[in-house]
Each structure stands twice: as C-alpha cells, then as structure tokens.
C-alpha cells in the first residue's frame, strides 16, 4: 500500500508503514535526532525530531509517528526550532563543557547541535550530575557525566548484540547507564555501544589521547581476522592506526566484533619484524634485502639442481591478499617448477 503525504510543501508517495523520519531521510529533509538509529527500533526519547503536522494541536516526534494518507508535515518552523533549541540547551546545562579536551570533539552530535543553535550562554545553568569512579574494563571508557540518556547503547546491546550488558538504572536526575549493580563492564566488548553513542560518554580506551578527530585520515579496509569480511575504516594519525570504525551502510551494517574493533594494536607492536634475518651459527643476524634475497634464490637454486624442483614446497596464507596468494603459487609453479603448494587453512 502506498500513501501520499506532503513534507514542507512537497508531495511524496511512499510505502505505508514508514515513519515520518524514515521518509524525510529518504527524501533528504533534514530532521535533527539524538536517540534514533535506523538500525534500531524507534524509541522517541530525545524529542529532538519534533515536527508539526497540520491540524494537530502539538508537534509530534517524527521517529515514532507513522505516515498516513494526506498528512501534511512541516519539518521546520520557528516554534519547532525554538523547542529543539531548548532541548539542546537543557542537555548542555547538565553536560561538562570540556569539549577542548574531549576525545569525541569534532565527531560529536551534541557539539554539532550546540554549534547549530549557537548556544553560547545557558539559561538553565544549575546542578550537574557528578559521577566518580571509572570502569576497569580494558576496552571501553565510560564517562557518564557526558551521557544524554538517549538509550542507544542499551538498545544496541540488547536488540543487535543480544547481550543486554547495560541498562538505564535509577530515575530522573540520578538516571544513568550502567551494568547491573554498577559493576565494571564485563561483556562481549563488541563496542557496538561505543559506535552509536552520540556524545563522548562511551569511547574506546585504546584510542584515548592518540589524535584529534581533525587530524585523522580515514582509510577504508577489511578486517584482517575472520572470514566475515567486515568493512572497517582505519583512523590514521601520525602513521599509526589509532581507531577502527565501520560504516552503517556496509555489508556488516557498521557492526563489528571485539577483534575487528579493538584488536588492531598488533599492527604497531614493537615486536614487528623490521629487517630480513639470516640464521648463522644458530643465531639470527640482520641482513639487507639484497643479501637475504640473493641467499634464498641461491639456496633454492642449489636444492632444485641437486634434488629436483619437487624437493621444494610452499605454504601460503589465508591472511595474505589474493594478489599475494596468486603470485606465490605462480612463483612455485613457474619459477621453481613444482606444484607443491598448499595453504594451512584447509583445516
């Protein structure tokens, strides 16, 4: 079933069952949101997505209101913008203003909104939540003073990850997101919650202090671990991968597991091999590439001459690229002259 509605004066035909927010996104009408994520069930918590429907007494939340035939929606007007501005102002009145040292600065939805609504002064200055104590888990920094209680982390953990490691405890001013009994987080550490948090309340510990958002170069890549082939974005600063994220429109819908999201530090490990090594008298000695490659070519040559090409074999890797695997077998077959080639991953 299709319905026809009007958004900001434009008439649009859409599938029945969509929400106003979904339709607006599909047709490029901008509606600010904090608690919505297209991959999660609608929640209606932040009220930032208020829109006016002609003939209704009050604005409604676009993320939870389904479209109906003949509906006439206004996504912006002075009243709505005033309401949205007040909501952001209220959130900021209970939010630390340490953006200059916040890891999330430059990639923070709340900061964006404060900029957009030009919120310099705050009419609602007052008491702020103070939380002490930090979470001892090795992956996720939880800074609950920065939490705006949008509930996305709780929902992603429950709806997508199926773990339900965190919940919103207490009510009103003391409400906060935490594991049951406020223990340290002990879960699958997939970091799905970190990826959806619109503020700096949840951050990856291993990325802290490694580089500002503005200095980061992003490179699209593929997770080096399992065969799912998740798409990852490498965040690079000063020739080091400092963070990994994933785009929601990717094959893996932006979700990753603990290895893909937090398992990248091996890359800059001090243990990395840095020089060719040749074993002499039972000990490895550093060698130049020329030396090492000449030596290998010479030894392979000798052995081939003496014992035949089939006395040489190669094992390739499921961690190397297709190009490398292709050239590796071509090397053994065409350069050495043997079909002794396999990869351990038959197992």
């Amino acid at each position: 079933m299709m319905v026809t509605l009007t958004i900001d004066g434009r008439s649009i035909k859409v599938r029945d069952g969509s929400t106003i927010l979904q339709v607006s996104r599909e047709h490029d009408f901008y509606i600010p949101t904090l608690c919505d994520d297209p991959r999660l069930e609608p929640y209606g918590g932040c009220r930032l997505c208020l829109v006016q429907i002609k003939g209704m007494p009050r604005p409604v939340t676009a993320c939870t209101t389904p479209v109906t035939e003949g509906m006439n929606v206004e996504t912006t007007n002075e009243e709505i913008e005033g309401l949205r501005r007040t909501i952001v102002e209220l959130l900021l009145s209970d939010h630390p203003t340490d953006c200059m040292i916040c890891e999330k600065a430059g990639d923070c939805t709340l900061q964006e909104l404060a900029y957009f609504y030009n919120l310099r002064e705050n009419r609602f200055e007052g008491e702020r939540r103070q939380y002490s104590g930090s979470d001892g888990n090795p992956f996720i920094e939880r800074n609950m003073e920065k939490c705006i209680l949008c509930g996305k982390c709780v929902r992603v953990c429950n709806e997508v990850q199926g773990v339900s490691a965190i919940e919103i405890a207490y009510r009103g001013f003391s409400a906060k997101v935490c594991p049951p009994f406020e223990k340290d987080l002990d879960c699958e550490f997939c970091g799905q919650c970190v990826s959806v948090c619109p503020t700096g309340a949840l951050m990856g510990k291993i990325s802290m202090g490694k580089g500002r958002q503005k200095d980061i170069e992003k490179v699209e890549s593929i997770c080096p671990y399992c065969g799912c082939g998740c798409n990852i974005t490498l965040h690079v600063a000063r020739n080091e991968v400092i963070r990994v994220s994933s785009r929601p429109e990717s094959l893996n819908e932006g979700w990753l597991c603990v290895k893909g999201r937090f398992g990248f530090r091996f890359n800059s490990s001090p243990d990395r091999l840095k020089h060719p090594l040749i074993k002499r008298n039972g000990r490895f000695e550093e060698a130049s590439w020329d030396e090492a490659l000449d030596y290998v070519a010479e030894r392979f040559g000798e052995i081939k001459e003496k014992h035949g090409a089939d006395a040489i074999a190669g094992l390739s890797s499921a961690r190397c690229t297709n190009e490398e695997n292709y050239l590796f077998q071509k090397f053994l077959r065409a350069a050495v002259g043997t079909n002794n080639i396999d990869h351990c991953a038959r197992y």
Partner: protein
Amino acid sequence: MVGLATVFGSGAMTNSIPEIENNDLLFVIGSNTKENHPIVALRMMKAARKGAKIIVADPRRVPLVRFAHIWMQQRPGTDVALLNSMMHVIVKEGLMDKDFIVFRTEGFDQEFLKGLDEFTPEVGQKITGVPKEKIIESARLYAGASSPGIYYTMGITQHSHGTDNVFCIANLGLMTGSLGKESSGVNPLRGQNNVQGSSDMGCSPNMYPGYQKLTISTIKEKFETLWGAKLSDREGMTATDMLSAAEAKELRAMYIMGENPVLSDPDMAHTVKALGALDFLVVQDIFMTETAELADVVLPAASFAEKEGTFTNTERRVQRVRKAVSPPGEAREDLWIIAELSNRMGYEMKYPRIEAVFQEMGMAWPAMGGMTYSRLNRGGLQWPCPTQDHPGTPYLFKGGFPRGKGRFTVVKYRPSIEETDEQYPFILTTGRELFHYHTGSMTRRVDALNKVSPEPFVEINPEDARDMAVEDGAMLRVTSRRGAIELKARLSKRPDRGVVFIPFHFKEAAANVLTNSKALDPFCKIPELKVSTVRIEKV
C-alpha cells in the same frame, strides 16, 4: 571444501551474509558462530527476531544456543549418524522435494535409500546421544521450511570423516530442494579472513587458480601460455604430506608465507621435527612466530594495513584493502618480496601496479574476469562475475549446478579414529574463542584482548570436575597419546560430561601438542582436530 566441490561442482558458501536474515529456518551444525563468526551470528539473531527458528547441533553449549529453538548436543564425531537419521525421518515421512530430486539431482536411488534405512531416530539417539524427539522435530522443521539455510564450519570438517559430514549436509540440502534460491542453501563459513581467496587463487597442490585441475592438459597449456613457462604436470603435496616428506628427506626446502604451522597444525612435536629436518626454511611474516624461529631466513612482511590488494570473504565477496600506514623498518609488501625473489631465480615478474596482478588473475580465472579495483570500490563483488557489466552473484546454482546435476552420496557412519578407553577417558575437542584469533600471533599482542583472556584453559563439565574434586582455576595436566600440557580448569556447562574443550591460541599450552596428525580424512587430508582422547589429572 573438497566435499561440496565434488557433489555440486563448486565448494563455497551458496548464499550471502545479508540473505541470512531472510532464512525462516537456520540449521547451525558444528559452528560456534557467535564467537567465531560474530557478524554472521548477528544476522542469524536478526532472522530469529523476524520469526525464524534456529536449530543448533553442537557438542558444546555454544552461545548461539541461547537463541535457538532446538539444541541437539551430539557426541563429538557422530554428525553422520545425526544427519542420516534426520534424513531417515524426511524420507519416511515423504517430506522430500520430489521435483527437485528428479530434475536437478542424481543418485537418489535404492542404494542411497538403503544407506539411510538403518538410521532410525532410535539408532540416531543411541549413537549421538540426542533424544529422538529432537531429531524428528528438527527433520520436520528443516524439511518444512521454505527458506532454510545450513551453516557449518570446522566442527564439521576437522574430522577424519570430515568429507563424509559435508556429503551428508549436501544430501540434506539436495533432498529438500533447498539450494539455488535466495536465502536457501548450504553454507560453509570460512575461518580466516582470506581462506576463500587463497583457495580461489590456486594455493593447492592439484589446482590452478579458479579450481582448474592441473591434470587436464588444455588447462595446463593455457597457464603455460599465460605465464610463459613450462609447468609440471605432477600433482603436488598437501600441507600434511609436506611435513612427512620433510621428515623422510624427500622434501628439502620450504617457503612459508604468513602461516604458523607449529601452532596451528596437529601434533606440534611432529611439526617441529619435520621442519627441523629441512635443509632450508624461509619464513615470511610480520612477527617472529614459533615457525619463524626455526627458519634459516626470515623475511619481514607488511601487514594488511600497509598494502593494497583484495580479500575474498566467506560469501565469495572480493573486497579491497588499502594502504593506510607504512610498514615498520624495512618490512616490505609480500608482493614485492615474491617478485624480487622470482626475478633473482631467473623467472621475471614485473608488475607496474598491483592492479596489474589483479587483472592477470581475471585472465587466469574468468569468474573474476569482470572485476576491476574501481568496480570493487562500492562494497565489493561476489564471484562469479565474468564480465564488466555483470553485477556479481549473491547466491549460487540458480540455473543449475556447475557439474550438471547435484549428486547424492551414500555415507556410512564411521566412529572417530580415537575412541575413549580406560587410559584416555575424555574426548578433547579444540577450537577458537571470541577474544583471540587462530595462533594468537596478532591478538595476543593486543594488550586489551590479553587482559580479558590472558591464559590458556580447559573447559570441563562441573559434574566431571566434582567427581575428580577439581575446582575452578585448578591446574590440570591433560595428556594424550602424543604429549601433555598443563593449564587451568574452567568449569563450564558448555561441554557435556566426558568432553573437554581447549582453545588453540595459546603457545604456552598448545592444544596441538595433544591432537592427532595421523588421523586424516582420506579424501582431503584434513587432520582430526576435533576429536582426540585424553586423560586428565590434577597437578
């Protein structure tokens, strides 16, 4: 994946990851999906939220069981009996897809049916330990589903009868016509990130890139022309054979790129001895692995983040990796190393750009012929993709099987090679856990991962532990016919009584000291990593 290739003519996942969420029935056998393929598991859970039913068959209470409608806890190594008795039910109750069987398959004959005869649910229960009601209900659910998907991994293949297991799975899929359709198929989930790609690229002793057999002379000639070299028509050795040949001094030199067989292969003492017997060993890697320690020359390679190229994931999707940082010290891309070596050996390899290698791959194997790096930029492409305007292939066998008709195979139940006895009363099964990966050479260098999973352990059922007066965290010695390791007990209801589990990431207590390298699948030479017998003592 020899099994699937034999019966269908192609041995890869038949469907795509996004299709999983539209399965109405998921049969997950021998796969700890939530820990080993976490993102595939999210799609499975999404399917369940949309109303699909999940059946898990696994000797351990794996995390996905929590989302399952039925959990069948078969004894390790009894998958053939389990699957055959499910098929027995399907045949007896007439739940097959008769049209599909007639038009698209062969071998569904008297002999095949006779092979199933003895596997009544009662017999199935006796061999597998799974209550017959569960076997019957699972069979009905699978046969009655309109878009069922089967998912399996090492739990099925790492057995001395791994290929038999795969044949049974294929039989089940063929019998119900659950193939060649969207969200309906037989799906081996590949373990490491580019297993699919390294098989596709011909890193195998009897096939050129694209599964083209080197014993067929026209194919050999094609490659001789493409590569401008005379090629050998003698099939090569498998990884397992290489080690025995090294010990026998038939093999003199090995070149190992990016693998750590000392930890990943069964029977570590045997592997070390075999590699030690070589005249010359070259290892190319990013870390000084246990295997590299044994080498004569170690060549420092670039990591995935330091090079351009492509990986092929478990659903045949070819995707790009890109250079994000430069390699440390003098480490170089494997491509550069191989080409330099080849040039020095008198066979010239000159590629102006990496994409030139990719283009040559497309010439060698038409299924990738339509791909270019720029086409891969938007989410990759799934092979077969033969022409520049081909959109890629999300699911296989739409118009039929590459070998013509899908083939039924008669499969007899054979017990695992090692069976428990008084001396070795426990069954050991090995595998991976969420926080580490393979031999751990990468993950164990990530502090945070090490912190949540710092040390090796053996999972043992609390009741067995109680009988032996073993407490959680106590040190145990686990001994098999091949060796012994010491590690901490982790009491867990995941394994059934009589079964213990050890993850193989930890070199200080390497599970593969215990496993059996001699028990091979006769067909594809996969060692029986999933079943060996051990005894357990307190230290």
